[in-house]
């Protein structure tokens, strides 16, 4: 439009070009309208015919079998909804009996296999620090009574163990400490991890040699000079949620006065793990292209609300190679076209939220580990037990919009590694990241990201959900805090395994086909 304006700006004073005015002025408008209505009607008739035709054949033209959003939301939303959706049978409801059976394994076998892989069971290695803190209910008022709580909890969680009130939302005024449990993965993950144990190699600088990785967790027992990097690589090769999935993501956010500033934001994402697949067919690489391109994870997210985001669709392909930039595309509803995005633009927070691309909604660590751009020094600064958020078996954790507190929150003692990722380039947004990794699940349970002045900036602690009969961990409810701007984002991801996700559903054409307008 601006180009057109500028071309008009060029018109000069000779007046030999007179731009047009509305041409209908000088034509019999009544006749035009009648003709228009007749022919527009004909066009609408053709459209209607096409609709009827396609409705007739729609059964054979079915897209991904994603349940209606309203149907999913009946089971759980993050705000003011204490329903235990897992306990109520969420997955049994949405999966066919055959699909469900295919996703479940013998629990005892999974426990045994995973304990052999990591070399311990979590309940056996905790209970040594502040042993006076026993399972039971505690309120924030007990912090004085039990000084051991401070010793047991990571600082950012200890701060949030408080009654609700400004400036941050998502505090937990009361918690239930549950006995430490053993977590484990699905049999195929355990088998792949065991099968390829010791095969994944790092180069002399501690960066992964891609060709040496096949499947499973690459470093279930990290050790040696590059132990910190190995722990981070476990996160990057994570088996979180499902290998082919659709997820409904619901978020809202609050300002420092605890007033909501992003209301009822929601999006639907489709994604696949493109390499190292062991649970859902196709196994190994997703397809030939994934193998040739070295694709790792592919996702397409369609935004529906708030209104400014409605119609936008983003696509991200992560590559295995640390030297290959991710591929980011965006369908802009305003422009009505797909644009390639700058893949190196990873440090700004997603619009209005408290999460940046390098950290990710999985609450942890997604920064590309490369010596070429913003390299880091990885160091394990602690290896001990902490009292941290327990995984939710029922799905009843929720955010209370009145008190702005989290409820039905459980804590448990977990064996953790604390990894400090120190940025060696002070032009990066953070000076260091402190990520708390669970030694048994190998996943981060929270993080503290510090700005270049050393101040705690962004932190998070997700309540993950554990599906015991599947051996699957899903994202659950995440709370993301901006400790400088005093801002909070609450998010819930409801993920379903969708075996029929195809390349068509996550490629360039998918952005066009999923466009609403």
């Amino acid at each position, binding site marked *: 439009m601006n180009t057109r304006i500028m071309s008009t700006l060029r018109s000069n004073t000779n007046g030999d070009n007179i731009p047009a005015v509305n041409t209908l002025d000088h034509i019999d408008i009544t006749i035009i309208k009648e003709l228009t209505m007749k022919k527009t009607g004909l066009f609408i008739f053709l459209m209607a015919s096409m609709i009827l035709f396609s409705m007739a054949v729609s059964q054979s033209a079915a897209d991904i079998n994603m349940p209606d959003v309203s149907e999913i939301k009946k089971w759980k939303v993050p705000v003011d909804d204490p329903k235990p959706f897992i306990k109520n049978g969420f997955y049994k409801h949405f999966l066919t009996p055959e699909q469900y059976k295919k996703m479940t394994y013998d629990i005892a076998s999974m426990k045994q296999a995973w304990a052999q892989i990591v070399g311990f069971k979590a309940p056996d290695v905790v209970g040594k620090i502040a042993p006076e803190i026993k399972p039971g209910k505690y309120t924030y008022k007990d912090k004085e009574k039990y000084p051991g709580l401070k010793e047991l909890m990571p600082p950012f969680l200890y701060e949030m163990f408080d009654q609700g009130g400004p400036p941050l939302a998502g505090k937990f005024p009361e918690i239930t400490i549950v006995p430490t449990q053993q977590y484990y993965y699905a049999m195929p993950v355990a088998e792949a991890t065991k099968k390829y144990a010791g095969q994944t190699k790092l180069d002399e600088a501690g960066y992964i040699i891609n060709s040496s990785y096949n499947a499973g967790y690459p470093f279930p027992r990290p050790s040696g000079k590059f132990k910190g990097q190995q722990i981070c690589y476990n996160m990057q090769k994570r088996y979180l949620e499902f290998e082919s999935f659709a997820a409904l993501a619901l978020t809202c956010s609050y300002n420092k006065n605890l007033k909501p500033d992003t209301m009822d934001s929601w999006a639907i994402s489709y994604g696949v793990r493109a390499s190292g697949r062991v649970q859902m067919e196709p196994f190994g690489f997703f397809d030939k292209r994934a193998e040739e391109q070295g694709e790792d994870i592919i996702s397409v997210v369609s935004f529906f609300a708030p209104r400014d985001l409605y119609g936008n669709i983003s696509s991200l392909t992560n590559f295995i190679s640390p030297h290959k930039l991710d591929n980011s595309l965006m369908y802009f509803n305003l422009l009505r076209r797909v644009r390639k995005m700058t893949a190196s633009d990873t440090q700004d927070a997603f619009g209005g939220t408290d999460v940046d691309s390098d950290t990710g909604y999985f609450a942890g660590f997604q920064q590309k580990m490369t010596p070429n751009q913003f390299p880091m020094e990885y160091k394990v600064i602690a290896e001990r037990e902490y009292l941290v958020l327990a995984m939710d078996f029922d799905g009843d954790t929720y955010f209370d919009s009145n008190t702005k507190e989290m409820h039905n929150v459980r804590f448990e003692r977990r064996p953790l590694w604390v990894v400090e990722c120190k940025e060696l380039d002070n032009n990066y947004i953070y000076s260091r990241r402190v990520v708390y990794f669970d030694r048994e699940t190998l996943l981060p349970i929270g993080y503290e990201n510090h700005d270049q002045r050393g101040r705690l900036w962004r932190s998070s602690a997700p309540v993950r959900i554990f599906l015991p009969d599947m051996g699957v961990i899903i994202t659950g409810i995440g709370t993301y805090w901006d400790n400088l701007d005093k801002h909070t984002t609450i998010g819930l991801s409801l993920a379903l395994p969708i075996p029929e996700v195809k390349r*068509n559903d996550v490629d360039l054409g998918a952005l066009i086909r999923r466009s609403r307008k």
Partner: protein
Amino acid sequence: MMSNNRILAGTSVMIGMFVLLTCSTATAKYVKLFGKECNVLGYASQKVQYGFHDDFNSYEGFNEALNTLFLEGDIGLTDSLRLYGSGKLTSDLIYQVIQDEDQWTRKQFDQSRDKLNIDDEYWQILNELHATWVVDRLMIRAGKQIVSWGQVLGASALSQFNPFDLRRFQGVDLEVAQIPIWLLRTDYSMPVKPGFLTDLTLQFVFNPNADFIPSQSFATGNDVAGIWALHLPVELFPGMVARTGSAAMNIQEREEWSEGHEFGFRVQGMTEGGDMMTLNAFYGYANDPVTILDGLATMASPPSFVDGKTVIHPVMDGYYPLQRFVGFTYFTEILPLRFSFAGGVAPAVTFELRYDFENTYAFANPADPFGLMYMEDTSDAVSAILNVDYKVKIALLNPKAYFQFVGQLNYDQIMDSFVRSQQLNFRGYPANYTTSLQVMTTYLHGKLMPLFTWQRDLYAQTDMFGGSLDYSPNSRWTYSVALQTFRNMDGPFEYKDYVYFKIKYKWG
């Protein structure tokens, strides 16, 4: 024009839906329609504009009070079939507010009320309405819609199908500046592709000319174009300058359905290295007419009361000429220019090229000493755009968010030297270069967004500066203030400088 009753009825329905959507629990949710989920969203905005200049074509003081009510929604009828529709009601209440003011009526701005008070054509109220059918790799979309080509951030030279609404300059929201028209569009992802490509999609677009809707362009004459009437003084004789008033237009249009069909074809691919490219081809018609001066009618009646100058009202004949072009776009990231001290984001470069075959141009016959006899001729033409997006960290000014710089260089060239020489006074400088620069960032957790824009025509040495500040305390409300100034060398937008305030409420 619609009758008052129909306008009233339409307004009532829109207001009713607004109240329903903003006051009910359905806000920010979807509703069930025929047992299917239907997303319903929209916004309402009110803008008040203040002009700085008192001139023949300008009004000093509050001169625009534009409001827009926009509703949209989509529904999935089956797994493979979706419907999308949107409607809007745009009106400028300034015509009600200052209808009897002396300056306003003497300059005949009040007479533009029929054009600009309420957008009441059916195609203005019914914004989009289309059905999308998706099966496997194929998408078919039919209905009133927008098809946008190009890759630059903003208007592309390749976006040809949809006309633009520029009657109020940049007064309307960007998303309603393009006018949806009745189109049939198909997109198909190729299962087989050349080895160097990872994705390959084909697009075919057909315009059956079901209802011809031209661009709503800038115009002359306060009685037609209101405060946006172009400032075009004409030197009739040495020392005697006249004003250009509204033109009587006699524009031929092609018969709907049977004539004026348009076709477009696009191939879009992505390389293994992540670069994106398209090849485009278009056969159709211009959205703006080529016009030829048919005669002059001069008037010294009411407008002359402003400054005593004669006002000429030209009579123009014209038509929408054939337009055929091929195009090419390419996007790449310049990784060597990814400097960590600047934040580590690589600049993204987009290049667009459009080559037109035998475009039609009209101009005053050089053999006519009075410049009243017009002629037309054809020439090939080329347009190119080089666009650079660069996100840069300037920690001193904003330690928490990047600055985004978008620079663009536009180049236009008419290939035929005779046509070019006769077009010197309008579009056909030996080569037209236009540059633009946009700078933006965010503060307060993305709530405050300052934006600065500068456009410059290097040949004509005209500039347009703009600055805006948007404050969005939450996802529902946005408050904006913007300032636009022109350094236009007595050109069409001279004396149009303005500042506006705008409030927008969104739901969905």
